[in-house]
């Protein structure tokens, strides 16, 4: 397993990092819920990278990790990461997915994209601007839409879902979640180095240092698991079927643990509306539920290994 990034991959990551730093401030994320059109210029810029939809899973993950670290809203992520595997990689129109089974996941940005792929077990039907209902928002950076399927409608063509479609989507979402977790970890680490109490930085107290060490371990393990899965997908190796479950549940576990610790270590300031931490925690909690909970992934993994 070779984790070395090629120069092109490093450049892709740096480009994504620079792009979101400049064009996706947290003020945009905050404004998105009330007026999703604020993300349109960003979506347009990201279009340049639409070919990631059909490229290597590792490249896609590197890119999405950076987007996750900035909570990039809009239609690019659902289109490229979730919808593309079910549309033969055709992302000329925006899209997203709604999963009915083997678990339930509402459509991310389902009211704003052109097409929604409704996945029900091993079948999929692509709906054009389906009816539905916007769900009560918890993650402020993301709109969740409950799609109403009209079985009789003429544009509903039911086909076999590509077998590995959900696997690719799961790894992509995990990479994005790892990026979100990275922001929470790094921001907290920096805060403990600068925030002073009892005349010294709080990061000098072992009570926090040891917990930060554990956070770094969880984060690093999740990161490595996600890219292992991405490499296995790119290699079309059988390992990928197990690796995707490891990736999603490790990413969710790290996100949950680090979210809780991040809040605790920030103290009162982290609990305010004005601090960005809650935006990230909301995204982290919401992503845990999307494309299978940790419990679901572990049960599935158990079927494969036991």
């Amino acid at each position, binding site marked *: *397993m*070779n*984790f*070395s*990034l*090629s120069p092109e*991959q490093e450049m892709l990551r740096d480009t994504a990092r620079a792009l979101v730093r400049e064009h996706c401030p947290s003020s945009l994320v905050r404004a998105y819920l009330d007026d999703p059109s604020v993300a349109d210029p960003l979506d347009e810029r990201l279009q340049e990278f639409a070919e990631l939809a059909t490229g290597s899973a*590792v490249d896609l993950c590197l890119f999405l990790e950076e987007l996750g670290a900035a909570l990039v809203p809009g239609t690019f992520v659902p289109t490229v990461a979730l919808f593309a595997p079910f549309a033969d990689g055709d992302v000329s129109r925006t899209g997203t997915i709604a999963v009915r089974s083997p678990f339930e996941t509402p459509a991310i940005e389902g009211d704003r994209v052109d097409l929604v792929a409704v996945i029900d077990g091993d079948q999929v039907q692509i709906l054009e601007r389906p009816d539905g209902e916007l769900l009560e928002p918890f993650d402020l950076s993301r709109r969740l839409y409950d799609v109403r399927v009209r079985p009789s409608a003429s544009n509903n063509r039911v086909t076999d879902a590509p077998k590995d479609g959900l696997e690719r989507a799961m790894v992509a979402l995990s990479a994005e979640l790892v990026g979100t977790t990275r922001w929470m970890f790094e921001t907290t*680490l920096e805060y*403990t*180095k600068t925030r002073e109490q009892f005349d*010294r*930085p709080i*990061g*000098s*107290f*072992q009570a926090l*240092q*040891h917990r*930060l*060490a*554990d956070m*770094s*371990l969880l984060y*690093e*393990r*999740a*990161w*490595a*698991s996600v*890219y*292992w899965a*991405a*490499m*296995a997908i*790119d*290699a079309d*190796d059988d*390992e990928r079927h*197990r*690796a995707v*479950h*490891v990736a999603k*549940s*490790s990413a969710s576990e790290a996100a949950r643990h680090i979210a809780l610790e991040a809040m605790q270590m920030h103290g009162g300031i982290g609990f305010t509306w004005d601090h960005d931490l809650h935006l990230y925690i909301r995204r982290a909690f919401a992503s845990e539920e999307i494309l299978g909970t940790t*419990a679901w992934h*572990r*049960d599935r*993994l*158990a079927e494969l*290994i*036991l």
Partner: protein
Amino acid sequence: MHLAWGPEEEAFRAELRAFLEANAPPEAVGRGMEPELEEGGIPDWAREWQALLFDEGWLVPSYPPELGGRNATDVQTLVYFEELAEWGIPRALHFPGYAIVSPSLLEFGTEEQKKLVPAAMRGDTVWCIGMSEPGAGSDLASMRTRAVLDGDHFVVNGQKVWTSYSMWSQMCFLYVRTGAPDSKQRGISVLIVDMSTPGIDVRPLRQSTGGTDFAEVFFTDVVVPAENLIGEMNDGWRVTMGSLAHERAGLWVEWIGALDHLFRRLVEQARARGVIDDPTVRRALAAAYEEVAGLRALGYKGFATYEKAGAAPEHALLKLATSELRKKLAQIGVEIDPTPESRRELLGSLSGTIGGGTSEIQRNAIARILGLPKGY
């Protein structure tokens, strides 16, 4: 990033496989890479196996042939560890000779001292490391065993503890205080000590598990020739850092291999006990698999960091994570199979987060890597 190694590495793997198929002793296969010592010392098969690995250039593959290697590259060394882990084969039942003493002598020793290396690596001489003391555990720099230079020899007085293999060792790699009592890291030296020197008293320590792997070693007016000093006087702290730095980039494979081995045994146990369909057991095993697989991936990521930067902070995380995970696996073992044997296994696993730097010391080190200020 890609999953597989290249054809050169796979050719290396094939060569090693052929050697193992022809030569691996049945006692070694499936034993796990970090095996427990047997009562009564190092068995003959283990001595012969270590000597054969040395003679055939498979003991430390990155070394040149005269030192038990074959000038292997870093990636080949990693493949070597992968393969040993796959077979569950240990290189030897005692590691200080090839893993700590030899690399340190090669780096810091005199020409005369370097002559001790082949026998140490081959296992012909058994070495112990005299480091921990009753008052110097995690706070190693406070050690008090004193060596006073008197003309052409040192006189050593003091006590070491938890000294593994000391009951069966011919030689000791001994850390001593040569500076002022409060000189901490700046006043420590390393001596080569012949264990048959008068004044050395080895008293085996019985462990909580009932076994005896280590001993207390008492030194009373022990005379050590001055030329047995390794490196400079009071520069011993630097010598501690010399141990197989280039192998460290792959040593984690042994730890993961051991966990893999334990995991597979848990699955067998769950089958044998008829609890493999219990949802709680299944979820616990899946979570354990997830952790082992993730840590393996993290090890490979660290290897990539090492290749690029010459050091890998990831590997500090792995010592902590693998020793903690071993305790978790042992607890699952007790759930699955509540027998005295699995409880003994759990008790035994508790040493892993104490020896070789406690988990707390590991977390301190990780905090330094994260750039956190000195801790309180």
